[in-house]
């Protein structure tokens, strides 16, 4: 017995010491959200059968020299309200091992990746949205020379998480991407003012033909090139991609090819930044399941071309989500800071910001098409060939000024038009679907001598009328007051008041109180109150969140 014990100690001691010498590096995070919901007939909020709902996640990443490994555990007991319905149970939602040195980086298992601007391929996650299209398979990244990166990927995509298990999509995705930064590679360009990067990507998906009476392409390719340039204060970048015939649920099983172009031209110097952007897309939904819809199994990422707003009434009532079938969009953004010490700039400078974005349909020409031929191509389209249907328009302006060390103010105005027939966020009867709103926001920030601080927002949304009545839910007013007691504790009170609803019994207040505690990388928040139904968006991808009334506790921790 003694000998056995000794033998065990003999074997484990070096193991222990070995483990300590190179304990490696652990990092990660935890997030948990709990809801207890009540029924509220005024805002049509329902109580879920289980009353309580909880989403939890934990990521652990480990590196030891050139070795790396990581995993994420997820738990939906059941999923919180408004989360997509394909998440349930507890289990491992992501896991990988890999090896990386300066030359090569290899991963087996789950990984996230983006080629260029993502028009060909982008695997990413956004937990708040319930979006996770990670790839599960093999990836290699090679850096043969400074300024050159070559990537290759092969895998299935994560489609959903059911009963604690990752469910993959039916299609295999593979691709490669190369990028070269000329100024790092070509010696005589090293210190030139003109800076140039070139890149190219290719992706292909394979999905067996699942339609007995149609001959569908089983392998569909998507490829493109990009260039990024900088000269003095000017920057220019563009990417153009093409997609092969890809009959899908999205496009009604047509055999049209697809294309997309995104370009940005910028000028900036200290105190002034300008960017002009343009985008033209046609038939660019690209999924590893041709029967997929909404945010399921997208291989690429087509961003919507508009500013991401943060104030409650601007961000969540009438946001725009990108239309994969085709759009032509433009955007301009200018930020100018009036110098400190000047008459208008004051002691701290004054910033002026203007932003304009517009999106229309992409024209589809059918005159040259014989509808009886067997090609399955139903129209032709050209780059930046814009139709007359307005999808979205946003004109906004804001001015921010710090008056003293302890007092600042931001005033903003937004004029937003959303075509609800195209990017549907609500139910209205107006035939053209256009919802126009004017939104005003004033924000004040104050800091007190005892290190406490106060922030307040007053927001008003004024909507257009149709047949004498306000469209959708009518006008809204929102007030937010946030008080920070010290570096650990804060409290906020928000009320959204739908005072302009055409139905008197729906002119409801939506009070919402939050108490928060923060200590270094730990955050705990307890909230109670009403939340109206609305859109929750991150990066132009949105999900509908139903109205709710109740308690929410959320906890986040990084380590």
């Amino acid at each position, binding site marked *: 017995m003694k000998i056995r014990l000794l033998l065990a100690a003999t074997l484990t*001691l070096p193991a222990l010491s070995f483990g300590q010498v190179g304990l490696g590096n652990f*990092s990660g995070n935890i997030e948990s959200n709990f809801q207890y919901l009540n029924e509220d007939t005024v805002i049509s909020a329902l109580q879920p059968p289980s009353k309580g709902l909880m989403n939890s996640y934990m990521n652990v990443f480990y590196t030891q020299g050139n070795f790396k490994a990581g995993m994420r555990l997820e738990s939906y007991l059941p999923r919180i309200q408004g989360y997509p319905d394909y998440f349930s149970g507890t289990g491992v939602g992501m896991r990988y091992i890999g090896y990386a040195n300066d030359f090569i980086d290899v991963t087996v298992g789950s990984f996230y990746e983006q080629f260029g601007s993502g028009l060909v391929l*982008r695997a*990413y996650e956004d937990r708040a949205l319930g979006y996770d299209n990670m790839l599960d398979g093999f990836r290699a990244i090679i850096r043969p020379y400074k300024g050159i990166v070559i990537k290759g990927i092969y895998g299935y995509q994560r489609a959903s998480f059911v009963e604690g298990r990752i469910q993959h999509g039916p299609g295999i995705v593979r691709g490669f991407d190369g990028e070269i930064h000329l100024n790092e590679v070509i010696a005589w360009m090293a210190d030139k003012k003109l800076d140039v990067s070139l890149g190219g990507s290719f992706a292909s998906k394979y999905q067996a033909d699942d339609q007995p009476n149609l001959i569908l392409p089983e392998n569909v390719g998507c490829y493109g090139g990009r260039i990024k340039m*900088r000269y003095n204060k000017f920057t220019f970048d563009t990417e153009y991609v093409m997609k092969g015939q890809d009959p899908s649920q999205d496009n009604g099983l047509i055999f049209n090819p697809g294309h997309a172009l995104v370009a940005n031209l910028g000028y900036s110097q*200290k105190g*002034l930044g*300008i960017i002009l952007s343009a985008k033209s897309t046609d038939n660019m939904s690209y999924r590893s399941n041709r029967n997929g819809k909404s945010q399921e199994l997208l291989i690429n990422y087509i961003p919507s071309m508009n500013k991401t707003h*943060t104030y409650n009434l601007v961000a969540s009532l009438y946001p725009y989500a990108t239309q994969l079938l085709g759009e032509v969009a433009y955007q301009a953004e200018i930020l100018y800071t009036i110098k400190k010490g000047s008459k208008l700039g004051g002691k701290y400078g004054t910033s002026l910001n203007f932003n304009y974005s517009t999106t229309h349909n992409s024209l589809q020409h059918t005159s040259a098409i014989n509808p009886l031929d067997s090609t399955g191509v139903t129209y032709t389209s050209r780059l930046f060939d814009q139709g007359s249907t307005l999808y979205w328009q946003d004109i906004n302006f804001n001015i921010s000024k710090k008056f003293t060390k302890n007092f600042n103010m931001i005033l903003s105005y937004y004029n937003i038009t959303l075509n609800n027939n195209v990017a549907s966020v609500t139910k209205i009867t107006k035939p053209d679907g256009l919802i126009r709103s004017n939104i005003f926001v004033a924000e004040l920030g104050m800091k007190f001598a005892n290190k406490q601080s106060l922030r307040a927002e007053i927001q008003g949304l004024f909507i257009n009328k149709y047949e004498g009545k306000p469209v959708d839910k009518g006008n809204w007013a929102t007030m937010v007051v946030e008080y920070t007691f010290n570096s650990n504790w804060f409290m906020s009170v928000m009320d959204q008041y739908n005072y302009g609803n055409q139905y008197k019994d729906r002119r409801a207040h939506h009070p919402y109180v939050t108490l928060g505690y923060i200590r270094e990388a*730990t955050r705990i928040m307890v909230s109670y109150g009403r939340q109206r139904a609305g859109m929750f968006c991150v990066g132009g991808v949105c999900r509908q969140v139903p109205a709710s009334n109740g308690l929410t506790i959320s906890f986040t921790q990084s380590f």
Partner: protein
Amino acid sequence: MKKLVFALFFVSLGWTLSAQPETENHSSVKQLPKVMLVDLDGKSINTAEMGFKGPIVISFWATWCAPCKRELNTIQDLYPDWQEETGVTLVAVSIDDEKTKAQVRVYVDGKAWDYVVLLDPNGDFKRAMGVNNVPHTFLVDTEGNIVYSHNNYAPGDEEKLYEEIKKIAVKGAN
């Protein structure tokens, strides 16, 4: 047999003890992970070897994140003094994706920031650093160890951050 096991035991004990001193520096501190990012000029940067002399503040932000911008605009007014007194470098890591990435340069130059700005459009560095939500600020010492981190921003948090910077700046000078 018994003797052999005893001998092995002592050999292994010896190895274990001799291995101890090396562990001291690396026991429980978190090191900066290695992720390849690009800066606003398109140059690739290895996050584990950024090559700054003094302490580094890494601040995750986005053009659509109001408290992030509040934090970085507040520090901007104090930054020249901070740099002079402690030699600190602030690295602002934007997690803007392709939708808003083009606006990063507009904002940075429009606000005349003097920070080093890195782009993390697919959240690779954010994930590796265990960031749940922005703003999240880390303080890294001259050996690449993460010595302090803070989630969220409330006015006054920058003073606490500066206290922490001063601690390691003094340590670095010794």
